[in-house]
């Protein structure tokens, strides 16, 4: 079981709710994946008195845990205000914290991220920071009060899969006891399987499912590999070797001819 900020979850797949062909297909994909947590983007212009009421109602009806996010926020102040609005709107302390450095590449502004994480943690938020695989930034985020880290494996929406496997191994090895969720950059189920085999605790996806030809089937496919990848990690996968190693005993054979 996965424990995030004291909450226990059976599913290690978290899904985003944006970009689906329709809310109905989004809901079906969430059900097909059996995921228990969905992220909801709160664009500031949609909040306030006149919220995206019916859409949020549809998400609430899914009966899963909501992890609001601060997608699209470019400054600490903006992210903090959005988080506060989200807490009020959804009645949860959980917040996926995004502070975007580039409008274009959506690369996180890690300096602003640490600052916003510190402010929000001091206000009682349970912060899920979207960050890079930089170890020092990760340390700063933990110092700032985060108890979960969400490193990317490639830029948001790029569908590239893990572009820096060594970096992912390093962050996993460095923080063996911190729940690590790979957020952003996964394109295919095999990418998710790969990071789960590396020992990551969960994955968060959106585009890879929402923009698939059949989002519902793709959500189910991701759910399967996330579980398989986790089981493989627990089972202890073999490390690659440089030469062939026979699987049958060679005693009694003249192998050194």
């Amino acid at each position, binding site marked *: 079981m996965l424990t995030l900020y004291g909450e226990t979850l059976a599913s290690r797949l978290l899904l985003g709710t944006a970009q689906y062909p*329709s*809310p109905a*297909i989004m809901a079906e994909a969430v059900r097909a994946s059996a995921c228990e947590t969905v992220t909801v983007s709160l*664009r500031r212009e949609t909040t306030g008195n006149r919220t*995206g009421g019916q859409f949020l109602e549809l998400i609430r009806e899914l009966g899963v845990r909501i992890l609001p996010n601060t997608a699209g926020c470019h400054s600490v102040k903006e992210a903090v205000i959005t988080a506060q609005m989200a807490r009020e709107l959804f009645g949860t302390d959980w917040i996926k914290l995004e502070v975007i450095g580039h409008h274009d590449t959506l690369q996180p502004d890690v300096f602003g991220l640490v600052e916003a994480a510190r402010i929000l943690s001091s206000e009682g938020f349970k912060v899920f920071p979207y960050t890079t695989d930089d170890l020092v930034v990760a340390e700063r985020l933990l110092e700032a009060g985060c108890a979960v880290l969400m490193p990317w494996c490639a830029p948001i929406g790029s569908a590239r899969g893990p572009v820096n496997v060594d970096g992912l191994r390093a962050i996993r090895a460095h923080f063996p006891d911190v729940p690590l969720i790979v957020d952003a950059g996964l394109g295919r189920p095999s990418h998710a399987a790969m990071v789960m085999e590396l020992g990551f605790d969960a994955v968060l996806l959106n*585009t890879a499912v929402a923009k698939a*030809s059949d989002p519902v089937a793709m959500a189910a496919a991701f759910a399967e590999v996330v579980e398989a990848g986790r089981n493989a990690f627990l089972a202890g996968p073999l490390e690659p070797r440089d030469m062939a190693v026979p699987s049958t005993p060679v005693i009694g054979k003249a192998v050194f001819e």
Partner: protein
Amino acid sequence: MHVLIRGAGVAGLTLAHELVRAGTQVTVCDIRSGPAGSASWLAGGMLAPWCERENAEEPVLTLGRLAADWWDAALPGHVTRNGTLVVAPARDAAELDRFAARTGGHEWLDGNAVALLEPDLAGRFRRGLFFRDEAHLEPRQAMTTLSAALKTAGVRFAYGNDTPAEADRIADCTGMAFADKELRGVRGEMLLLQTEEISLSRPVRLLHPRIPVYIVPREGHHFMVGATMIESDDDGPISARSTMELLNAAYSLHPAFAEAKIVETGAGVRPAYADNLPRVKQTREGISVNGLYRHGFLLSPAMAQEAAALILNERVEAFDEAHG
């Protein structure tokens, strides 16, 4: 039989047309003083079922492919059948492959072929997709002309506080104003630009992973740039961010748009059901036609035909048939 249609947007007007053609007495009422102000007034007017299929379910294609012929028959001369051109900035070239994989009815163009279709885009795009069978119309002209034609055909229009007469059946086509708990609003924002420095012969879609936009050429060197899709029923003025994104997209299609005049900005709320597909529903007073989402001009003809058939008790359920 006398049918009162509430709502003079594209859903109401197309239904009026279908009913009048069948010899029914029709009154159209709207709390507005004219067609301006409805969601349809802000529409792009693209009759692009193949492109829309990229992010919509099958009925949008099966029902939408009838639209160009319907509008052509109803309003001869208003439909421009020049297809749709889809391009992507070099950096987002993968989006074009993805779009092609998700749609049909297109052909690949190289840079020269793009330039042959749209000379002003010469040298700007190495590849493009051409949807030859798609069409477009100017929504405001179409609504104005259709209203006038309906008046000539005997339809009474009751705008503003004008009280309509008693009717046998009521068809509600009021979009978000209709009390239906299943409806949600999807905010859309658009710009109208004017420049003589560039001309286009057809709607051009510029793909982007997050901010796909279309630019539809209109008379008088106008270009409609749209449209955002925001899960909200807020119909307040366009946001700075959306303006910036739409302008950025126009600028990346062609730098000449940087010098264009912004002659209008608009924001409205599209009525949508959870599957983003329209519905004809039976109500206590008659029927409702709603949930046309971003497909008002594309799907209202099919919905009008289904609604008219229901009212005239023929019960041809086009929508259910399309669902298989």
